[in-house]
């Protein structure tokens, strides 16, 4: 029996390296996305959004005592997922004759598309989408005018994990709220998120410590510094040097991720058990 276009597209996405592939209908996305940020604002006549998700980093990147290893590894994922979206967009155009394009550059919310494609649900940790098996994911999105059968949202909320509910009932804390009270606040009620608040402006200084924004801010500081020796120290010093280096590689991310170190969902997702031991055949 021949497989459906949806199955073929998902199979190709996985072959190209996605851990998960989901399909959302533009009609569903548009119930939440504001005007100007809808898939059919970006690609006229778009009917479907195909989301390619992958684990954020190799699991080992979470097992480093230096946060920098985790950050550096995270920078590879999004271009990689976008490359999958690009290849699948070309496949759809060639095989099925429908327009397709990669959604990028902040025009549409990949997070919303991922939710609508059944990849997970928003979490107390900055409202990011957590998947029950893969934890924190990153996403590439291809939009197409091809009408595809959507996967729909997942029925059960992934966050909070039962151990967070227990901790909340005992201590009034969850692991993420405890890790980063500067960025996150919220409450659980009856085992679910009652409300939450994310101070993105604080998180940005941590997620994007070395970024275009910190470059602009530090440069302004240097320009405004009347003392020439202090100004020299700012511009020629290690921090500004590393900021400039990172701007040249566009190495940046949305959240710093420290709130997720103790998250039971991400711990499960990043835990490995050896499948081979010395002496076993390779």
């Amino acid at each position, binding site marked *: 029996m021949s497989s459906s276009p949806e199955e073929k597209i998902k199979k190709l996405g996985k072959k190209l390296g996605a851990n998960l592939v989901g399909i959302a209908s533009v009609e569903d996305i548009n119930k939440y996305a504001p005007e100007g940020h809808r898939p059919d604002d970006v690609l006229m006549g778009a009917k479907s959004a195909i989301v390619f998700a992958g684990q954020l980093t190799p699991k080992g990147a979470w097992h480093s005592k230096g*946060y920098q290893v985790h950050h550096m590894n995270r920078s590879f994922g999004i271009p990689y997922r976008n490359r999958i979206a690009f290849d699948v967009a070309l496949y759809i155009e060639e095989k099925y004759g429908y327009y397709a394009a990669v959604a990028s550059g902040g025009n549409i919310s990949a997070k919303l598309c991922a939710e609508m494609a059944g990849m997970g649900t928003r979490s107390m940790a900055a409202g990011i989408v957590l998947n029950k098996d893969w934890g924190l994911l990153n996403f590439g999105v291809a939009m197409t005018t091809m009408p595809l059968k959507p996967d729909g949202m997942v029925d059960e909320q992934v966050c909070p994990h039962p151990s967070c509910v227990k901790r909340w009932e005992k201590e009034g804390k969850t692991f993420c709220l405890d890790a980063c009270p500067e960025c996150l606040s919220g409450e659980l009620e009856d085992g679910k998120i*009652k*409300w939450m608040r994310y101070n993105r*402006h604080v998180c940005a200084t941590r997620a994007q410590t070395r970024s275009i*924004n910190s470059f602009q801010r530090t440069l302004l500081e240097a320009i405004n510094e009347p003392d020439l020796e202090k100004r020299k120290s700012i511009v020629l010093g290690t921090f500004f040097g590393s900021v400039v280096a990172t701007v040249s590689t566009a190495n940046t991310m949305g959240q710093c991720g420290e709130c997720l170190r103790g998250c039971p969902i991400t711990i499960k997702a990043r835990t490995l058990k050896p499948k081979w031991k010395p002496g076993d055949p390779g």
Partner: protein
Amino acid sequence: MGRYISPEIYNKYKQQVLDMSLAVQNYVGIEQQRTESCMTDAEMAAKLGLTAAEVREIRTIAFNDLHHADMWLNSDDEKRMKCQSYFKKR
């Protein structure tokens, strides 16, 4: 040169624009609330009587202007401390 926003306009609207933008995100349950914050530039512009281009400029400058340069520098230590504290507790 970038689009020029006068200091009067910038200072008058910067806090409102920040409050209405994605800089602070509120959720009820897991649904993002978009009546007070998380608005698009066009939505903010309609509320404030500005153009979307003016709001975009104010928002971009205000976001970079909000925290002193030291906060970016110090965030390195914050992350290091949080990461080390996690491994110490394990």
